[in-house]
């Protein structure tokens, strides 16, 4: 039996591009089909009922029709427009960083219910309570977990010994923590403090609201940022462009109310 010609999916827009005079090529993150690309005809026309539901970070339900070359979005219903997120520069920028990271790490056609759930919960949290370092780092760590790249934090990835509460190191090439005895054998390992290891382990076992209770010192926040950034960059094999925009916003002190 052939696949149905039309289908309905819930999704979050992670990217879109203008095509033709008035059309849009939209990339959605969906729970059942993973990343889906579809064309929305006349979506850039003022007054199009599709347009507002197809902006980046829009969460909606989409009615699609399968075509030979590409699918078409023929109807859309907004489920959440994240008004607080969209009206604050810092929050919007964090949302765009998340969308870019998701886009860079997921592939079309591979179901990803966990990654979709993570993205939606993080966007809702940013909309509700703003975005700080904890939210971004928690998202990065749980995204790595959802994609199967979670750093191993229980045992030394080099010798297999149980990690002691001393300064160890994190190696992105080996995929986890190396113990103090093996640090010198791993060239890309960077020192990982006891507190940073504890926080990473804690975040892997809790939801975002609980994770936000961690009050990291500035030094610990920087350490977590650098370690996870190295890990994400190793997985992607490239930089996330939005990251430099976030750094710029911080430097220019252009934040309105967050973090």
């Amino acid at each position, binding site marked *: 039996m052939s696949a149905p010609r039309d289908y309905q999916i819930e999704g979050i827009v992670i*990217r879109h591009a203008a*095509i*033709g*005079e008035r059309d849009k090529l939209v990339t959605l993150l969906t729970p059942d089909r993973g990343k889906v690309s579809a064309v929305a005809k006349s979506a850039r026309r*003022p*007054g199009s*009922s599709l347009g*507002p*539901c197809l*902006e*980046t*970070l829009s969460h909606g339900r989409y009615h699609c029709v399968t075509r030979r070359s590409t699918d078409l979005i023929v109807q859309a219903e*907004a489920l959440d*427009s994240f*008004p607080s997120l*969209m*009206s*604050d*520069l810092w929050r*919007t*920028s964090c949302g*765009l*960083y998340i*969308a*870019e990271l998701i*886009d860079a790490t997921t592939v079309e056609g591979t179901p990803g219910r966990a990654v979709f759930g993570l993205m939606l919960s993080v966007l809702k949290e940013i909309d509700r309570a703003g975005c700080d370092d904890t939210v971004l780092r928690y998202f990065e760590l749980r995204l790595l977990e959802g994609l199967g790249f979670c750093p191993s934090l229980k045992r030394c990835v080099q010798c297999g010994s149980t990690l002691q509460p001393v300064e160890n190191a994190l190696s992105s090439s080996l995929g986890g923590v190396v113990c103090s005895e093996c640090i010198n054998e791993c060239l890309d390992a960077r020192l990982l403090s006891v507190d940073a290891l504890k926080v990473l382990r804690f975040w892997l076992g809790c939801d975002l609201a609980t994770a936000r209770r961690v009050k990291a010192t500035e030094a610990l926040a920087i350490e977590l940022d650098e370690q996870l950034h190295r890990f994400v960059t190793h997985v992607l094999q490239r930089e996330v*462009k*939005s990251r*430099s*925009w*976030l750094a*710029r916003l911080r430097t220019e002190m*252009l934040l*309105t109310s967050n973090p």
Partner: protein
Amino acid sequence: MAITVEPIARVARAFSRLPGIGPKSAQRLAYHLLNSSDADIEELADSLRALKGSVVICSSCFNVTDTDPCSICSDPQRDRSSLCVVERPSDIAPMERTGRFHGLYHVLHGSVSPSKGIGPDELKLRELMPRLRSEEVTELILATNPTVEGEATDMYIRQMVAPLGISVTKLARGLPYGADLEYADDMTLGQAIELRQGF
């Protein structure tokens, strides 16, 4: 069917490189030109040749123009207290068609798009500040596209110019003329309610 006559194929290939023109449309245009008069072909060729040579960027507003400063910037009748920020040179024509705006423009040549690596340095944003400081601008109108990137650009500009104490406004968001309320999305309808006017 592939075009076997090389001059026609060459024209079709050139057309197909244009945005929104597929191979079929390009082929149709090429055959249309083949049947056009010599005068029409000459005019088209001349105008294309002159396009790159005579069009420059206005040093004041960064609009595309054939004179520097452009006709709007050099018009003494324009209201110099009002400056409208648009994303693209092509956004000026619809604004002018309304006949409601008589001030000057500032073209950004894009919008902030972090995932594409486009930030303020890639836009004509830094050039806006000297204009606001030196010219007698009292109102800055943000007329970027109602997209996430457009909104981010607006918010960035608003915070950038805040120390200058200039009034910053943006184009109203709401229901488009001729639209059905039933099909309006939450965001648009919400903004239309918030920004409702006395009647």
